[in-house]
C-alpha cells in the first residue's frame, strides 16, 4: 500500500515499511491494514506512528519550523542561482572603463587634432 512505502522500517533503517521483511515491519503493515479497514484516515494513521516512533519513521519529512530550510532550500538555491546569473549578464553590458595615462591622453589629443578640417 502507498502509505507503507512512505514509512521507514526502524529495524533495518534503510527500507520502507512496504519492502521490509522484518517482523516489526510485518506487524506494522498489519496495523495499517486494520486501521484502514476500520476507516481511520491516512493522516491519523501517520500520527499514530509518529506518536510512537517520532518523525524518524516518516520518509517524507513534515513541514515544520525545523524542516522549513529543507523544503525551501532547493527553491532558494535555484532562485539565488538565477538571480546571480542574470545580474552578471546584465552587469557585463556596461562597457569597461578605460583609464588612460597622461602620455596616452596627449597622444589622443594629437590624433584628434589630426582630424581637424584643415588637415595637412
Amino acid at each position: 500500500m502507498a502509505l507503507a512505502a512512505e514509512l521507514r522500517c526502524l529495524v533495518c533503517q534503510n527500507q520502507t515499511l512496504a519492502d521490509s521483511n522484518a517482523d516489526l515491519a510485518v506487524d506494522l503493515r498489519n496495523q495499517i491494514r486494520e486501521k484502514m479497514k476500520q476507516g481511520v484516515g491516512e493522516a491519523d494513521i501517520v500520527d499514530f506512528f509518529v506518536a510512537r516512533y517520532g518523525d524518524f519513521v516518516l520518509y517524507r519529512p513534515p513541514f515544520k519550523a525545523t524542516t522549513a530550510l529543507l523544503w525551501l532550500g532547493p527553491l532558494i538555491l535555484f532562485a539565488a542561482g538565477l538571480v546571480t546569473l542574470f545580474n552578471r549578464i546584465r552587469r557585463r553590458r556596461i562597457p569597461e572603463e578605460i583609464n588612460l595615462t597622461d602620455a596616452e591622453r596627449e597622444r589622443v589629443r594629437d590624433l584628434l587634432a589630426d582630424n581637424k578640417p584643415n588637415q595637412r
Partner: protein
Amino acid sequence: MIPEVGQFALALALCVSIAQGVAGLAGAARRDIAWMSVARPAALAQAILIAIAFGCLTYAFATKDFSVAYVASNSNSALPLQYRIAAVWGGHEGSLLLWTLMLGVWMVAVTMFSSHLPDEMVARVLGVMGLLSGGFLSFMLFTSNPFSRLFPAPADGHDLNPLLQDPGMVIHPPMLYMGYVGFSVAFSFAIAALLGGRLDAAWARWSRPWTSVAWIFLTLGIALGSGWAYYELGWGGWWFWDPVENASFMPWLMGTALIHSLAVTEKRGGFRSWTVLLAILTFALSLLGTFLVRSGVLTSVHAFATDPARGIFILVFLALVIGGSFLLFAWRTSRIGLGGHFEVVSRESMLLTNNVLLVAAAGSILLGTLYPLVLDALDLGKISVGPPYFEAVFASLMAPALFLMGVGPITRWKKAELPELAVRLRWAFAVSLATAILLPFALGRWSALVSFGLLLSAWIAASSFVHLRERVKNAATGAGTWSRLRTTPLGYYGMLVAHLGVAVFVAGVTLVKGYESEKDVKMEAGDTIEVGGYAFRFDGVGNVTGPNYVAARATIHVSKGGNTVTVLYPERRIYPSQQMPMTEAAIDPGVTRDLYVSLGDALSPTTWLVRVQHKPFIDWIWGGCLLMAIGGLIAVSDRRYRIPSSRPADAAMAGVAARP
C-alpha cells in the same frame, strides 16, 4: 610473503607520490625543467607499484590466504574464484586500494596522452594527482592496511556478503571508481590552471576529453549499480535515494554541468572561473562521497563497516584538499578575467541556466542527505529524508532543465531572439504535446504526471530532430544531405545521442512509475495470479544446491492470452556462512516490459509468499543511460581531441604570455 611485498610496494608508492607531488608542483613554480621532468616517470613508477600491491592482494584472495585479515573477513573457501577476485574490493581496505589503482591508471593515461601539453601544465597536473595518491596511500598504510595479518590464521574465512556474489560486483565498483577518480584529472587541470595563472580556451580544450571520459565511466557505473540493485535485491526497486547512491549521483550532476560549461569555455572563452569552480566542486563531491560511505556518519545499506577514527582521517584529508582548492580559487580567480559578453537570451545564458539547475539539484540532494545530520548535531531531533522528498525536489528542478535541452542547442551564441526560436520549434512542440496527451490513453490510463514526463521526453527527441534537420538543410555550399551528414563533427552527434539517451531515460522512468503493477500473494501449487495482463501459475517448489548455498526454487509458468511466454525460477537461497536467507528474483526482460517474480517466506510446507510485478519500459532506464554513455564516447572521438604527432598551433599558444 606476498602480502608483505604488497605492503612494501604501497610504502614505496607513497614515497614516490610525495616526490612526484613536490617535484611536479615546485618544479613548475620554479620553471625548473629537471624537476618537472620527474613527474612523468614518477607517475609511471607509482602506477606500477600500486599495480603490484593490487596484484599481491588479488593473489592472496585467489590462493585463499586467510592469514591476511582482510581476506579472512571477505572471503571463504567455498567462494567461487571470480567472486574471490571481486571480493578484493568488497570491503573498506580493498576498495581503497582499488581507488588508488584507478588513480594510477588515470595518471598513466595523463602521462601517455599529454605530449601536446606544455610541460609546466603536465608537471602541475601530475603533481596534484601525486599528492592525492599520497593521501590515499597514507590512509591505507596508517589506518586501513589491506595486508595486515591475523595470528593465528583462521581455518576459514567469514565470506563475502552473498548480495555481492554476483557479476555486478565484478564490474560495478571498477566502473564507478574509474568515474569518481577520473574527475580528479579535471580537478588537477583546474588547480594547474589556477597555479599557473593561465585559463583560456586551450585549457578548456585540454580538459574536456578527460572530463568526458570520466563522465562516461561514472554514467555506466551508476547505471550498473542501479540495474544490479534491481535484479539482486528482490523487490524490484532501482533507485532508493540512499545516501551512498546520492553520493555517486551528485558528482555525476556536477560533472554534467562541468562538461557543458567546458563547452562554452572552449568555444567562446567565457565562464572561466565558473568552470574552474565546477571542476573543483565535482571532485570535492567525489571525495565527500568517499567520506560519507566510510565514516559511519550516515546509515546506508552500502556503507562500509568502519569506525569514526578512519572518518577523522578522511575528513582532515577532505578539508585539506578541497579547503586548499577553494582557498586557491578565492586567491587566484580574480586574475583570470571575465570572458566574452553575451545577451540574456543566448546559448551561453541557456547553458549557464542549465548549470544553475544542475548545481541546484546536486545542492538539494546534498541538503536532503545531510539534513538529518544537521538536526541531530543541533540536537533538534531525528528525522528521515527519503524518496518522497528527493523525487519531488529533483523532478521539479530537472523539468526546466529538460525543457532547455530542446531549446539550447539550436540557440545562437552571443545573441538570440525568443520569437525566432519559438517559430523554429513550434512543430516540435506541437508533436510533443500531442504525444504527451494521447499516448497515456493508448497505454491504458491517463495521468497528469505521466503526460508531463512524456511531454519532456518527446520534446527533447522532437527538438533534436529539428536541430539535425536544420543542420542538414541549411547547406551554404549546396552539398547534398549525405555529404553534410558526413562532414558534421562527431561532437555534434555525440551531443545528439546523449540527449536522446536522456529522452529515453525520462520516458522509461515516467512509464514505469506510471504503469507498474504488483501483487504480493500466498500461493500454492496450481494457483494462478494475474498481473499486468499476464497470468502467473505457481507450479511448486523444489530444492537445489549451488556452489556455496542451498536454495528453494519455485517454478512459475507465465502466459498471456493462453500462450506460454516463459517459465521463471525465483529462488530463496541460504548461504551457510552468513545464515541469512536471500531472495534471488527471476526476471523476464523485454524492450516493452519486465516481468519480475520473487519468492518470499514459506508460510507452510506448501504455501509460499510470492511477489509478482509487471514493469513496463523499465529497461529504457538503463538503455537511456547506455545511450548517454555512447553519446559521450562519440563526442570524445571528435577529431579535435585526437592526439597529433605534433601540434605547432598549441606549441605557439603555449608561448603566448598569460592574458589578463
